[in-house]
């Protein structure tokens, strides 16, 4: 088969089984767009801003486990995509981002819409390529998908100069389904000796706790994790990124840990003697002050990325390997040896945990007339089923969603954890909805975040995406305001949002349904009404209490055991 570079891209994406391509055309990618139109092999989703293309591909990937693909033009197209690429990088999401580039002959001449895409993206990609010869194109694309999706996943940028896609230059093409690279051989099998050593430590533990992260979700290890945690009867806590890997409703689940985690989770972490970290990376929002982090614990760390191990916290038993593979091996070893955990010690440990749970750290006043943001999330959880997908933006609403929406399944909680990208929620929800056309998808957001990619309401109309937007509108940049209240004596510098649009009319102007709710008593009905409109995007603007704070909280620089709970006046 003789194809041009542009046709090779269209054909390769088809052969690779790519379902959706999120993109925005421009001069440097016109040959590719022409070939895509004629080939009609991959569904192209036209976003309204390149950042949204990368977030949508990202949301698609997080909710399916498949590699998300985006296509943008050179120069500003590429720079707009960078935020989405960095978002995917920090959360280890497999993306392939194809960026157009000026023709090879003029690279370096400051040509129109030229930027050094490989240079700009280098620090926020797993790897990137510049294709300098059309003969290398197919192999480079194959490498890009291979690198993005294997080992610790991540985004890969392929920069393609316009002359490489010239429709008049045709070369033979064959699809390479597998690829080998001498410099890239990710480890998958954990070392059996290390696994055995870890297991011995776990079986002797008196106060063990599992601390699991996004790696469990990415590594599809949810089932083996559930089996192992139940088999051992250990408590388990999860990071923001790992929510859903273990069911929130389960008695052994302590809730999220970290800065806005539960009291019981952080206290269990502080007092544990054996910590089993699985696919988690000891982020500063999790550890708090390192000196006070798990002071009495022996630490076992299972991760596919060797550089994650002992990066910030020195661990005692490192296991490099695929998380699912390691957990499955542990289960098999337990079966063979028929050993059990220390049941007597665990009884005491659970008793202690029960004491901590009595604090009921997520209590809040439900009897207000005005709308508490926590209440909206609780009701959202009530009116949606366990198979609903929830995306979020970044800020207080994100923490409320993580705390009060009880996730039961992996890949159903989609948010920007590492980079904390405002504007992520809506475009990510588009990718999720396209991947799951018949499922419920809601985007929890705030009036600050939603305006960072509000233009995507047009994309949602074009492709008839019935996303439900839950806008927690407190007229403040809530998380910024909270920090200013706590740490800047209440000086609210630029955290107040003036000139907020009428979101109801705005949604309507795009052809969607807009609703506004300002009474607590109306929340549930409004949600039920919105979710009953199965084929429509509904934007619900909840006017919430203005100065709500996210509790519990470990202030930056404090230890895990120094949690601040909501003041009594807040509790009922």
């Amino acid at each position, binding site marked *: 088969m003789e194809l041009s570079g542009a046709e090779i891209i269209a054909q390769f994406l088809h052969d690779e089984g790519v379902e959706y391509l999120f993109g925005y055309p421009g001069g440097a990618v016109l040959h590719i767009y022409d070939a895509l139109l004629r080939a009609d092999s991959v569904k192209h989703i036209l976003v309204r801003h390149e950042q949204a293309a990368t977030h949508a591909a990202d949301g698609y990937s997080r909710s399916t486990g498949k590699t998300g693909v985006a296509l943008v033009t050179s120069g500003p197209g590429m720079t707009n995509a960078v935020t989405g690429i960095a978002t995917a990088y920090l959360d280890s999401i497999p993306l392939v981002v194809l960026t157009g580039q000026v023709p090879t002959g003029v690279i370096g001449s400051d040509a129109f819409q030229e930027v050094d895409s490989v*240079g700009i993206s*280098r*620090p926020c990609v797993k790897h990137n390529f*510049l294709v300098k010869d059309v003969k290398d194109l197919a192999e480079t694309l194959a490498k890009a998908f291979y690198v993005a999706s294997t080992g610790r996943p991540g985004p890969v940028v392929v920069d393609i100069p316009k002359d490489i896609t010239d429709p008049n230059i045709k070369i033979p093409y064959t699809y390479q389904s597998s690829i080998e*690279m001498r*410099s890239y051989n990710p480890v998958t099998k954990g070392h059996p000796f290390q696994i055995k050593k870890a297991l011995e430590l776990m079986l002797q533990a008196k106060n063990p706790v599992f601390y699991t992260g996004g790696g469990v979700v990415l590594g599809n290890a949810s089932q083996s994790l559930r089996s192992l945690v139940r088999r051992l009867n250990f408590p388990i806590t999860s990071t923001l990124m790992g929510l859903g890997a273990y069911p929130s409703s389960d008695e052994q689940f302590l809730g999220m840990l970290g800065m806005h985690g539960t009291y019981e989770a952080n206290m269990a972490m502080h007092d544990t003697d054996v910590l089993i970290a699985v696919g988690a990376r000891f982020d500063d929002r999790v550890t708090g002050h390192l000196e006070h982090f798990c002071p009495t614990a022996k630490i076992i760390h299972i991760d596919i990325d*060797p*550089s994650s191990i*002992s*990066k910030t916290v020195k661990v005692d038993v490192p296991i490099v390997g695929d998380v699912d593979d390691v957990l499955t091996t542990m289960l098999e070893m337990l079966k063979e040896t028929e050993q059990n955990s220390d049941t007597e010690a665990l009884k005491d440990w659970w008793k202690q945990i029960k004491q901590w749970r009595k604090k009921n750290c997520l209590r809040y006043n439900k009897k207000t007339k005005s709308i508490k943001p926590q209440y909206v999330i609780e009701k959202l959880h009530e009116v949606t089923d366990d198979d609903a997908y929830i995306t979020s933006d970044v800020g207080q609403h994100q923490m409320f969603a993580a705390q009060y929406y009880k996730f039961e399944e992996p890949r159903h909680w989609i948010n920007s954890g590492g980079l904390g990208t405002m504007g992520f929620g809506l475009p990510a929800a588009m990718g999720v909805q396209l991947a799951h056309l018949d499922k419920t998808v809601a985007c929890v957001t705030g009036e600050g975040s939603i305006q960072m990619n509000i233009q995507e309401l047009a994309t949602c109309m074009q492709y008839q995406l019935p996303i439900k937007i839950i806008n927690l509108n407190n007229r403040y940049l809530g998380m910024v305001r909270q920090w200013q209240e706590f740490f800047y004596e209440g000086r609210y510098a630029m955290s107040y949002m003036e000139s907020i649009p009428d979101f109801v009319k705005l949604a309507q102007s795009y052809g969607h349904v807009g609703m506004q709710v300002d009474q607590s008593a109306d929340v549930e009905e409004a949600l039920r009404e919105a979710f009953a409109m199965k084929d429509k995007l509904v934007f619900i603007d909840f006017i919430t209490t203005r100065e709500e704070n996210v509790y519990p909280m470990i202030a930056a620089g404090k230890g895990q055991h120094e949690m601040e709970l909501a003041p009594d006046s807040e509790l009922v």
Partner: protein
Amino acid sequence: MRHIISILLENEAGALSRVAGLFSARAYNIESLTVAPTEDSSMSRMTLVTSGSAEIIEQITKQLNKLIDVVKLNDLNVSCEQHIEREMMLIKLKAPVSSRDEIMRLSNIFRGNIIDVSDDVYTVELTGTSEKLNAFIAAFDCDSILETVRSGVMGIARGSSSLHL
């Protein structure tokens, strides 16, 4: 502690900047860095001198290994018992008649070669460890040194252990 890390790198455009970028992005030290193609034209050999605590050096080697263009690497201070390191220097010295004997004598002591001579300037070529080159420089006062150029350290393991595919 000072470590010498030898790296086999894909001979790709941008490979060098990935290594250099990693060091600046993660705030690691680079004391010197030298790179050139090997007998296999698809690969370059890089020698990188860095310093840091044991934990930082461990992170550096892990992060380097994570770069897709890094084929293989060795920390010469960890992976082999002994290693040899060499650095080359070209140094241009003021050579008025009164100090020519001294320059020649010092060059001999340090086993250097005078490789260029003009009316009142000598250029000396010197190979050895970094300390040796430093010592040679220290033997002259600043005013008499017109220019120095150093290759950066190259390193190789002693004995049969070697860094190859």
